[in-house]
């Protein structure tokens, strides 16, 4: 029988080493997988991890990096705060969708008027939508002790149905020749979230993400609220003794991560996506969970992890185009990354020994 024995002494160097080891292991395993499938492993890995930045088509794909990393980092920053406190919001994808819908709805209600306040109002509505969607699991947990993991996850599927309903119903573009989907906000100047610096891919959402990294860093390392969040994650009774009310903390963490996911949603809806369709949710909310863990729930780590996972998105698409790799490659890579990270983490905290068979 295999047994896990806690290690007596663990080193802090592993904290930084494990994410790097996980990335390397993912590349190696991914390469093996490609070789088995009959692709050139070296070329495939290069296409995914190198070419998007430095390859022949890099000038096209490089701006995509920030476009993809922005929402990932924005969402992961919020998730990490809850994860530190042991509050597991798994449903950021749903909050992202609802945030996008709420923000877009404000824009579409004002269409075609041009107002200076429209874009700020959309952002507020997006944040509010994500916050409200996240308050459902918060309230159910505080009231009835329902698991926020399950409730927030289930609400993703509800949000996807809402998106479909919106795309086919209330938000459908009246001039869209019957096609599902809202008007394209990119063609509505007051409501659009354009690329701000040409050739970088940086739109308002990218700046919001940078701000979120900075703000969460201040919160977690300088503010008493962040201190209480860390305390609650490590020793809940001590946090209570300090004066933290668990209900307040649940509402704060879920609300904040929901609001940030909602923000990511509206920046996406008004920018790169341009409209609400039935497939508006594109998995950022789930990938952000990987980003948060890969970044060690640390703001700077999240920044780096967000860029890396953005790279796998772009590289995966590129490999699909140039090498005809299957479309699932990206998900497989992201899944492997999380798997290896958790695996290496386990091995740094435990040793595996063989028990004597009974």
């Amino acid at each position, binding site marked *: 029988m295999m047994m896990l024995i806690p290690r007596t*002494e663990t080193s802090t160097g592993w904290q930084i080493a494990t994410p790097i080891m996980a990335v390397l292991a993912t590349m190696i395993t991914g390469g093996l997988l490609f070789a088995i499938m009959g692709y050139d492993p070296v070329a495939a890995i290069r296409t995914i991890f190198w070419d998007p930045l430095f390859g022949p088509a890099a000038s096209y794909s490089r701006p995509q990096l920030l476009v993809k990393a922005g929402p990932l980092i924005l969402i992961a920053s919020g998730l990490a705060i809850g994860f530190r406190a042991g509050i597991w919001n798994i449903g950021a994808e749903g909050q992202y969708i609802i945030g996008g819908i709420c923000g877009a709805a404000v824009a579409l209600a004002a269409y075609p008027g041009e107002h200076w306040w429209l874009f700020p109002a959309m952002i507020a509505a997006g944040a509010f939508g994500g916050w409200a969607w996240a308050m459902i699991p918060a309230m159910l947990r505080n009231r009835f002790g329902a698991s926020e993991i399950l409730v927030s996850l289930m609400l993703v599927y509800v949000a996807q149905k809402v998106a479909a309903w919106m795309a086919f119903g209330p938000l459908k573009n009246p001039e869209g020749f019957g096609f599902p989907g809202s008007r394209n906000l990119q063609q509505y100047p007051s409501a659009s979230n354009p690329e701000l610096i040409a050739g970088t891919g940086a739109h308002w959402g990218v700046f919001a993400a940078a701000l979120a990294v900075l703000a969460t860093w201040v919160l977690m390392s300088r503010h008493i609220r962040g201190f209480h969040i860390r305390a609650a994650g490590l020793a809940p009774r001590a946090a209570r003794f300090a004066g933290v009310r668990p209900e307040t903390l649940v509402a704060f963490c879920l609300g904040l991560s929901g609001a940030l996911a909602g923000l990511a949603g509206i920046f996406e809806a008004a920018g790169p996506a341009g409209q609400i369709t039935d497939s508006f949710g594109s998995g950022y909310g789930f990938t952000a969970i990987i980003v948060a863990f890969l970044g060690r729930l640390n703001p700077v780590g999240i920044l780096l992890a967000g860029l890396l996972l953005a790279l796998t998105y772009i590289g995966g698409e590129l490999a699909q185009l140039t090498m005809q790799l299957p479309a699932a490659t990206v998900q497989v890579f992201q899944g492997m990354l999380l798997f290896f990270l958790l695996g290496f983490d386990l091995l740094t905290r435990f040793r595996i020994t063989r028990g004597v068979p009974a």
Partner: protein
Amino acid sequence: MGFPRYQNNDLTKGTNLAETAVFRAERIGKSYPGVRANDDVSFAVAPGEIHALLGENGAGKSTLVKMIYGLVRPDDGQMFLMGQPHHPADPRAARAAGVAMVFQHFSLFDALTVAENIALGMENPPPRRTLSDRITQVSHEFGLPLNPARRIATLSAGERQRVEIIRCLLQNPRLLIMDEPTSVLTPQEAELLFATLRKLAGQGTAILYISHKLEEIRAHCDRATILRGGKVMGSADPRAHSARELAAMMVGGQMREIDRSGRVAGDVLLQMENVSAPAPSAEGTALKGISLAVRSGEILGIGGVAGNGQEELLSVLSGEVLTRPGSVTLEGRDLSQAGPEARRLAGLLAAPEDRLGHAAVPDFSLTDNTLLTAGGRKVLVRNGMIDHRAARAFAEEVIKGYDVRTPGPGTAARALSGGNLQKFVIGREVMQAPRVLAVNQPTWGVDAGAAAAVRQSLLDLARAGAGVIVISQDLDELMELSDRFCALNEGRLSDPRPTEGLTLDEIGLMLGGAHGMAEAQI
């Protein structure tokens, strides 16, 4: 060695003992960042011997036994078990070699039965039926009655410890290690424990015993090895020395007398009126109609066996649990609806018993741990922003004022020895100059010298005009400190009696009778 007075005839006996010893350590050393926890430690434990390890807080006792049990690896030196080299890589290896250990903190699952818990700790558990029979058999053999089918949640602290001991006995250990086992036991339970240890020693098992209760060691141990600052100071026959002499050997100086003078009882500061609270969990105790009053300059002692509502009473005082409006007032101000932070700002402070995980966050540094309770009162937090420098300065102040042995305020709480963390936790509250301070087991695991210092600081606090509530299992401590005494039994508090002139018999009656009295009132 610089300690000739207490060195007994080890040198002549040495060669002899080296051959027959169950366990022998030779020049063991272990360093942690900034501390030499064990330095050149050599000693031997003979078969059938109850061998005490003595030393003040942070002397390195726990570190030493953790090395024997395979939890920590020595940096240098050698260990021998039954003459064989002993270098366990983990506790499994140590157990296989014949070492068993009972920890101060129980590692039992509340929801499981006695037998299930014991099976979980075994490498190859026998079938459930056989195991239950073995448990019953061993528990009778050693006079430790225990029903294998009972759930842990329903057991008292003493009974839980029996489970741990029987778990050890089932492995027929050659060496049994006990790290501060009696701190949670009633005097009767402690007696029972020693009877068991005696029986076990009679069968040739060696016992290594750590405790700060010197009287207990004098009464029951055959030999004592004294550690100071990680080094062996010598060994002594505890029966041949007074507790005072033993303490002096540990500290290398004289213990100071407690000064109770200069206190005057003033106005009532804190009042609790008919406070009831439901049990917080299945194992908790409900508080039933508790009333008390604490005056300025006064120490109110609350005695009773742990598990009778002590923790619950403290959380009602600290504000972790809120009670009926008007039921808790400080200087006439209703605090019953105020949370912990608001109570602290008003001047009502508390120090819970469980230092790792309740009074302190184990993984936080001492600096961060000051923020847990002193953020507002010591202005370590302004507009929500933490003033790390101020927090560090306050941590340093506490470390200095309470002689906390640690490399510095950046050390994680879990890296402190038990007694040193306890001193830090008490110091953190006392140094905030509370109006009323409630403490639970203030000297749990604290060595005799430091315990005297902690008690003195509570007396000084009262002298300066504060009111102090001391909840404790240690009757001597309560007699030494308190002006009035009451007993807590099954969530009910007896009427207070002046401590002066109270005999131990009367106290025993209060402890046992409080229950009966209250029940008659309903």
